[in-house]
């Protein structure tokens, strides 16, 4: 029996648009488990990213509850959510979002120093993570605009992992990358998951989705179905076919 990390009850999110209320998420009941690589798929406008923002405390739901363990985070204010994010969450974005005016290392340390006051230990941890994702010392000193997209995204993953989050949220992490660098990033995420890191990833890319062990399919703001794939194994055809079948069934 897996530990429930995040749980939602009747999670709804609506936006007012030109006087009309648009329901993006509709009564979602969901449990996310520790150690899982959960992939959220769906067509454009299905509410994937909205669900990710709500789950990660970046946005507040309109209705319903989100619980992180025993903590109900759906009632939190902005600053409480910020504290929740720094303590428990890591983020990898499609647009990477490193701060241009800080070196790669400073981008990571700025996030790390929020939680860890021990600068030496933090530096050591950062260097370990950089080494694990294959970023050299040279690159660490550079500014984000001076490195490649792949390097920047891997640096983004280091920033997301520096505080050893309980859960890593990734929003289309390969969306802005070319095929080769995208693959490197996916490998990095897979490696993290294999080491026990819980990951929730939004994607509409089949190749990325294959890395997950649990696939959720969202349609019109509701979970249409889910599929358990088991642990990722490179070149596992049976797994690939199971995913393809599931997505076909969902109307992908």
């Amino acid at each position, binding site marked *: 029996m897996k530990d429930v990390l995040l749980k939602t009850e009747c999670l709804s999110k609506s936006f007012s648009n030109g006087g009309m209320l648009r329901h993006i998420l509709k009564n979602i009941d969901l449990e996310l488990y520790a150690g899982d690589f959960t992939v959220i798929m769906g067509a454009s406008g299905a509410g994937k990213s909205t669900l990710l*923002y709500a789950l990660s405390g970046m946005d507040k739901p309109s209705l319903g509850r989100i619980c992180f363990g025993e903590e109900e985070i759906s009632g939190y204010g902005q600053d409480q959510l910020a504290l929740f994010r720094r303590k428990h*969450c890591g983020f990898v974005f499609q647009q990477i*979002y490193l701060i241009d*005016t800080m070196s790669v290392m400073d981008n990571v340390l700025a996030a790390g120093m929020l939680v860890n006051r021990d600068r030496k230990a933090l530096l050591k941890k950062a260097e370990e993570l950089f080494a694990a994702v294959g970023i050299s010392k040279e690159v660490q000193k550079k500014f984000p605009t001076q490195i490649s997209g792949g390097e920047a995204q891997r640096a983004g993953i280091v920033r997301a992992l520096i505080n050893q989050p309980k859960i890593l949220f990734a929003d289309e992490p390969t969306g802005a990358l070319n095929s080769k660098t995208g693959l490197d990033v996916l490998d990095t995420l897979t490696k993290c998951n294999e080491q026990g890191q819980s990951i929730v990833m939004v994607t509409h890319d089949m190749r990325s989705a294959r890395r997950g062990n649990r696939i959720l399919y969202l349609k019109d703001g509701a979970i249409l179905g889910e599929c358990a794939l088991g642990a990722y194994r490179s070149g596992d055809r049976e797994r690939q076919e199971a995913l393809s079948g599931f997505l076909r069934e969902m109307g992908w």
Partner: protein
Amino acid sequence: MHKSMLLARSQLKGAKGQAIAIVALLFLASSMLHLWLMLSMDYRQNFDRCHDRLHAAHVLLAADDDSDGLRDFLTQTAKGDGRTEEISFDDAMHKVGFFAYNGGEVNTELLFINRETAVSRSVGSVEIVEEGDVKSGIYLPVLYKSKEIAIGNTIEISIGNTDMRYEVCGFFNSVMAGSHNCGMCELMLTEDAYKKLEEENIAPKAALCSIRISDQAESEAYETMLKNAVSSKYPHVKTVSNSYALVSQSRYISQMVCAGILSAMACFLSGIALVVMASNIVHYVQENMKHLGALKAIGYTGRQLRGSLLMQFLLLTLLSATAGVLASYLLFPPLNAMMIAQTGIPYEVRFLPLPLLTTLLILCGAAWAVVCVSSRRMKKMEPITMLRQGIFSHNFKRNYAPLAHAKLPLSFALALKTTLSGIKYNFTVGVTMLLLSLIVVFSGVMEKNMIADATPFLDLIVGETADSCISVLAQTEQDFLQEMQADERVQKAYLYSSQEVRHDGGAKLMATICDDFSNVNNQSVVFEGRFPKYANEIALGATYAKEQDLAIGQEITVTANGKEAAYLVTGFTQISNNLGKDCLMTRDGYERLGELQAAEYYLNLLEGTDIEAFHAQAKKRFGDGVNVTINIRAALEGMSSVYISLMKVIVFAVLLLSVFVIAFVLFLLVRIMLGSKKREYGILKACGFTSGQLVLQTALSFLPAMTVSTAIGLLVSSCIINPLTALFLGSIGIVKCTFVVPVGWIAAAGAGLLLLAFAMACLLSLKIRKITPKELLVGE
């Protein structure tokens, strides 16, 4: 042109906040500039207009002798001078006297004239400003109109040693004798009151001679000529005189002080507004490099892009300057009321096209120059370079304050990073705080030396102050001195007499005569060299010495009473009473030119002594031996209260203005910073930074530049405030200021300024609360 206008409109729409802050700063700058120009270009000219309207004299002389012989002599002398245009004589009475005014006393040469005579004089008639139904009494210059001195009230005037009571009938405007700053003050009496004063023989009858000359620039020389002629022919006749040059300057001291302060404020505010404008343009170009590159790529020329900026800022400048000019018309009446309390000449506020045009031209011209210089990057860059450069406005050569090595807490370290990489912000903040520091120091110095305790200011302006002055006749002097030495209430009594002398028989100098200058209270009157010690020594007013190119050690000839003697210049003095035309000499020194008919003694009395009662006792004891008594404390209070009230308002206004300036500059900078760092703040919030941390971080990033520039500003301003004040007061004879710089006050005010600026930066940064990480993700 049309395309540039469209661009300008869209830029304005996109930066409303910045536009508002720049408008506010330009508004303040233009109102100060326009006020200053109105004061400089028109206010003082009001004296000339009034002088012309009342057909006033250029030289006014009252001689205590109403014989036909003297009148004939004066007529002949005047007619013999080619400069004379018109001469007229009137009957008057003349005596030194005083009356209570403004919490103190006015003590001056009083000139009593019959009302009917005064209003019908062919030269120098007066105009009645206000008149009641009172049939018998006195009319005073409009300057003295106050709560206590009002129509129907009774005023007590001490004429010599006699107190007279009059009912106030009205107020009038007299150009050449309508204030205690004119050397003589005209008072009009109704027919019966005039006759009564004449009969009581309190004040000697005098001939009032009013002369108009062809060239007003010659007024001083003419006065000298006339007075020399009278003193040669009638050495024992007491005369008082003034000239257009002296009166036009001395009645406008407050205008000069206000104009000086307003000019400084106008320069500060315009400077800050232009720096802020330049910083805004540089920032705009950097942040919109891609957008501008795209516009260039689709065919807009560099000239069109710069033209849009020029149009935008010229429009803002024109609008805010016009609004500022309108506001200055609202501010002018209260300022006018304050200044009339010193000038005593009514001024009617009216539309003045020249200051308006000058204000608009100066500000629009400066804005044009600033836009051209700040936007020159746009002209040279190729569209592809601009498109590629995009957000690369940061200097990537150096990673400032790397977090791996920073020993500071995270918020401080990140703030330091922003500070070190934000030269534009630092420059704008630095310039603002530097200028505001000067205002703080100025306010501190004025508070300490004028508002809280006016002694240093009075020492500077008046020269010597004591508690009382008693003028005794020569034959009473020894008895008086013995009595004073025996009186326990008298701490110090020393001769401090004033007599008129002339340099080389030409320029009039007011000589202060003392037995021993080491006795005087204000030892800093001589600021260079030393006081005269011997009979052949003299200390000269610095302004006059400079005009005449005289140096210490030089020998000059001084004349008086038809005699002349040579004196060695031992030092330079600064006394503003006679606009710098003063000298100091010992009694022995003066007696080389003539005997002192009356000796004026300055007295320092024990604290708590009733000065008026002391004077009454002296008059009782010495009878006619006492010529005049002056309550110096009361006279100074009366005189200084006008300046102190004016300075209180000025200090309050400049401090208030400083608060507004800080608020607007910070508002603009914070807004620019939030705009350019919105993405960064969104990322940091996503990583778990709270709004509070980011607000603190933003405000802290301004703190180093604020602290350093405030510290430098306070230090430099403290060093230059005295020379700067002396520069402003140079025209009234002040060459060196020795105002105490209140270090504690200034340090506390500086800290207050910093705290205020920091609190404002925090407050203005609260907008960060509205930036949500989701906004960042969706917005990209």
